[in-house]
C-alpha cells in the first residue's frame, strides 16, 4: 500500500479502475442481450418474465384513470344514460338490419366461392381487450392491452376497432400485449382502393390522424374520399377491413410519385376498447400453385360484386 496522503486519495484509484471495467462489462452484456433479443428472438422466456414483473406496476399506473372512468360512469346522470341508451338502441337496430343483409350475402358468397372452387374465407374469432392507460413512448405509437399469452394472444395478430384496422400485436407478455398502431412511423399495411382495387401500401406517419401512401405513381387512379381496405397480401391483416379514407392527393408534375395522405378509419388515439382477431392462416393457397395470381386479380371484382 502506498503512503496515504488524503482520505479521499485512498479510495479514488481502485474505484476509478474498477468503474471502467464494470462499465465495459455491462456495456458488453447489454449489447449481447440486444443482439440475442433482436436477431434471434430467443429471450422469450426472459421477456415474458420481465413483462409479468412489469404488469403490477403498469396496473398501478393504469388504475387512477380506470378508477376515474368508473366514478364518472357511476355518477352519470339519469337523463344522460337514457339518451345514451336510446342512441345505442337505434344503432343496434340499424346493425341488426345490416347483419340480416350480411347473412344473406355471406351465404351467397359461400355458394359463389364453391362454384369457383376458391378457398373459403379465413375463419375468424374475436376477443375484446381494453387499452391500458399506460404511455409507452410519445413518438412511437404503441399501446398496451390487457390480454396476453394467457388468452392465446400471439405476435403479429391483427387488432381492429369498431370502425377499422387498429394495428397488430408486436410483443406478448403473459398478462398484457403491446400493439403497434397503424400510425406508428415504422408500420406499414398493404391496402387496396375499394373503388378500383388498386393495391398499394399505407405507411404510418407518427401522426394518429394521418397515414401516407408513398408508392402511388403520379397518374394513379386515386381520388379524395376513396376508401382504403386491407388487401390481405401481407398475411397479417385479413382482406376487406377498412383502413382509412384518402383526404389529400397532390400531383406534382416534377415528381414521379403522387403524395397521397389518408385518414385512418379507426380512432387510433381515442380507443379504450379494441378487438383482437384470430385469423386462420391461409394455408390452403400454396397447395394449388397456379391459381394465386389469377385468384388475386379476380379477387377485387368478386368482392365488389358481393358487397353490392
Amino acid at each position, binding site marked *: 500500500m502506498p503512503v496515504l496522503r488524503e482520505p479521499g486519495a485512498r479510495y479514488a484509484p481502485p474505484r476509478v479502475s474498477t468503474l471502467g471495467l464494470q462499465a465495459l462489462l455491462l*456495456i458488453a452484456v447489454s449489447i449481447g442481450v*440486444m443482439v440475442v*433479443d433482436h436477431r434471434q428472438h430467443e429471450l422469450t422466456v426472459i421477456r415474458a418474465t420481465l413483462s409479468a414483473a412489469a404488469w403490477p*406496476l403498469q396496473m398501478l399506473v393504469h388504475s387512477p384513470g380506470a378508477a376515474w372512468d368508473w366514478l364518472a360512469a357511476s355518477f352519470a346522470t339519469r337523463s344522460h344514460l337514457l339518451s345514451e341508451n336510446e342512441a345505442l338502441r337505434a344503432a343496434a337496430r340499424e346493425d341488426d338490419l345490416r347483419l340480416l343483409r350480411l347473412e344473406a350475402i355471406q351465404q351467397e358468397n359461400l355458394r359463389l366461392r364453391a362454384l369457383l372452387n376458391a378457398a373459403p374465407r379465413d375463419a375468424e374469432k374475436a376477443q375484446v381487450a381494453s387499452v391500458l392507460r*399506460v404511455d409507452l*413512448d*410519445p413518438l412511437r405509437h404503441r399501446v398496451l392491452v390487457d390480454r396476453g399469452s394467457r388468452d392465446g394472444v400471439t405476435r403479429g395478430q391483427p387488432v381492429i376497432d369498431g370502425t377499422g384496422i387498429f394495428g397488430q400485436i408486436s410483443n406478448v407478455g403473459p398478462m398484457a400485449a403491446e400493439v403497434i398502431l397503424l400510425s406508428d412511423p*415504422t408500420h406499414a399495411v398493404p391496402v387496396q382502393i375499394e373503388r378500383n382495387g388498386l393495391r398499394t401500401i399505407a405507411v404510418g406517419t407518427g401522426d394518429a390522424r394521418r397515414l401516407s401512401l408513398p408508392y402511388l405513381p403520379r397518374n394513379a387512379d386515386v381520388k379524395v374520399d376513396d376508401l382504403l381496405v386491407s388487401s390481405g397480401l401481407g398475411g397479417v391483416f385479413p382482406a376487406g377491413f377498412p383502413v382509412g379514407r384518402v383526404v389529400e392527393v397532390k400531383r406534382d408534375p416534377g415528381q414521379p410519385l403522387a403524395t397521397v395522405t389518408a385518414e385512418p378509419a379507426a380512432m387510433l388515439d381515442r380507443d379504450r376498447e379494441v378487438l383482437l382477431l384470430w385469423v386462420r392462416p391461409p394455408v390452403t393457397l400454396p397447395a394449388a400453385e397456379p391459381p394465386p395470381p389469377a385468384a388475386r386479380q379476380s379477387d377485387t371484382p368478386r368482392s365488389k360484386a358481393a358487397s353490392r
Partner: protein
Amino acid sequence: MIPASRRSSWMLYAASLVALLLSAVPLPHVLDVLRPDFLLLIVVWFAVMLPRAGGLLYAWTAGLALDAFRGVVLGENALAFVVVAYLAHRFYLRVRSFPLAHQSLVVLSLLFTYQFVLFWVDGVTGHPLTDWARWLPVATGALLWPVLTGLLGRLTSRA
C-alpha cells in the same frame, strides 16, 4: 447506527420506483412529448450526490426495467443508462462542486448522450425515429435538475 448508507439505498429504490411509474403515467400528447427521462435523472442524481447508494449494476438494472416497461429491444436503455452512469460516476466530484446552473448544463450533455445512444440503437435495430421531438426530453430534463436536486437533497439529508 449504519442507517446513513442503507437509508440512501432505500431512498434510491423508492425514487427509482416512483420515476419508473412517472415515466408511464398517461399524459396529453403535448406534455407526453416533453416528459423528461425521470428514471435516468434519478440515476444521475444518485451517482453524483450519493455515489455509494447504487453503482453501475444498479443503473443497468434500472435501464433493463425501463426496457421491460416500454417493450423496446431488451438492453437498449440498459446500455444507455450504463454509459451515462459511468460518466456521472467518473466525474461526480467535479460535477458536485459546480454551481446549480452549471450542473444543469452537465446534465444536459448527459441526457443528450443518453438520447444519442438510444437514437443509434434505434437506427441499428431498424426502428429509426428521426422526429426532432425526441430531443425535447433532454432540455426538460436539464431544466428539472435544480428542482430534483432541491427535492432529493432535502429528502435524503433529513436524518
